[in-house]
C-alpha cells in the first residue's frame, strides 16, 4: 500500500486515490486538423519509463482534486506532489 500525500489533505492510503497516468500530456489545440497518427499519439502513446515519472492522481475519496505526483515506477518511492499548474519540479535523478 502506497502512502500518498495529497497536496491538500496530507498523507492518505493509496486506496483513496485514482491514478490518471502520465502527467503533462497537452491536448492538441486543433483536433480536427490533426492527422490520425498524431491523434493516436496523443490518445495512446505514453513514455512508460523505468524510473522516475510525473503522474496525475486524483484524491477520489477525499477532496476529489487532481494533482501531480513524482513516483519511481520500479521502487514506488514518491519524491513529492505538486499542484496542477505549478512549475515542474526536477526529477530526483535530473540535474536541477
Amino acid at each position, binding site marked *: 500500500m502506497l502512502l500518498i500525500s495529497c497536496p491538500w489533505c496530507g498523507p492518505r492510503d493509496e*486506496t*483513496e486515490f485514482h491514478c490518471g497516468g502520465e502527467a503533462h500530456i497537452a491536448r492538441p489545440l486543433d483536433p480536427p486538423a490533426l492527422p490520425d497518427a498524431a491523434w493516436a499519439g496523443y490518445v495512446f502513446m505514453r513514455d512508460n519509463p523505468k524510473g522516475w515519472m510525473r503522474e496525475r492522481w486524483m484524491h477520489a475519496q477525499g*477532496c476529489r482534486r487532481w494533482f501531480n505526483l513524482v513516483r519511481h515506477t520500479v521502487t514506488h518511492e514518491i519524491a513529492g506532489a505538486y499542484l496542477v499548474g505549478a512549475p515542474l519540479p526536477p526529477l530526483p535523478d535530473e540535474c536541477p
Partner: protein
Amino acid sequence: MADRGTTILDPLAAAIAAASCEEARLSRLPLVGQVTLRAGRDAVSLAGVALDLALPTEPNRVASDGGRAAVWLGPDEWLILLPRGDVASTVARLEMALDGGHFAAVDTSAARLGLALSGPAARQVLAKGCGLDLHPRAFAPGDCAQTALARVPVLLVQRDEAPTFWVFVRPSYAVFLARWLIDAIAELRLAPIPGLDT
C-alpha cells in the same frame, strides 16, 4: 425535540442504542440542513460575511459558531451544516452576496446522514476500518476529513476531546456503516475473561 425525521436508519434505532457502552456511544444525529458551496478564493470573505461565519481556508478544518458549522471539503468547496429551517434563507443570502460571480450554493440536505460516535474507545473503533491517523497529535477537535471508513466514503468531523466524532455518510451506505459500527463496538461490551483480564 430534535428533528429525527424518517430515515433509512429508523429500523436500526434499537440496535444502535443497544450497541452503545461506556467506552463507545453510538447514536444517530438529528437531521441537519446541508448547503454545499462552491466558490473561488475571491468569494471566501464575501460568503463569510453573508453567513456571518468565516469559511475555513485551511484544509480539513471546521469553523463553528455553536448552531452552525462550515466544513472544508476542498480549496473551493465547503459544506455548511445548519438547522434545516435555515437552508432556504441561507442559500438565498449566498446567492445575493455572490451574485455575478462564479459560484454554486445548493441544498444538499438529503445527501448525507449523520452518526455520532463518542467515548474513550471511539478512536479504537474507527481505526478498525479507517487508515487515517486519528491520534490526538494528528487529528483534533475542529479537524475534519473526507476518507474511507469500512471502505465507505465518509466525512469525519471531530467535535470535542471526549472524543466525539460525527460520521456523515451517503444514505445508501448508512445502514451498512451503522451495522459495521455496531459490530466494531461489540467487543468492548464483552465480559472480562477471568485470569486474562485484570
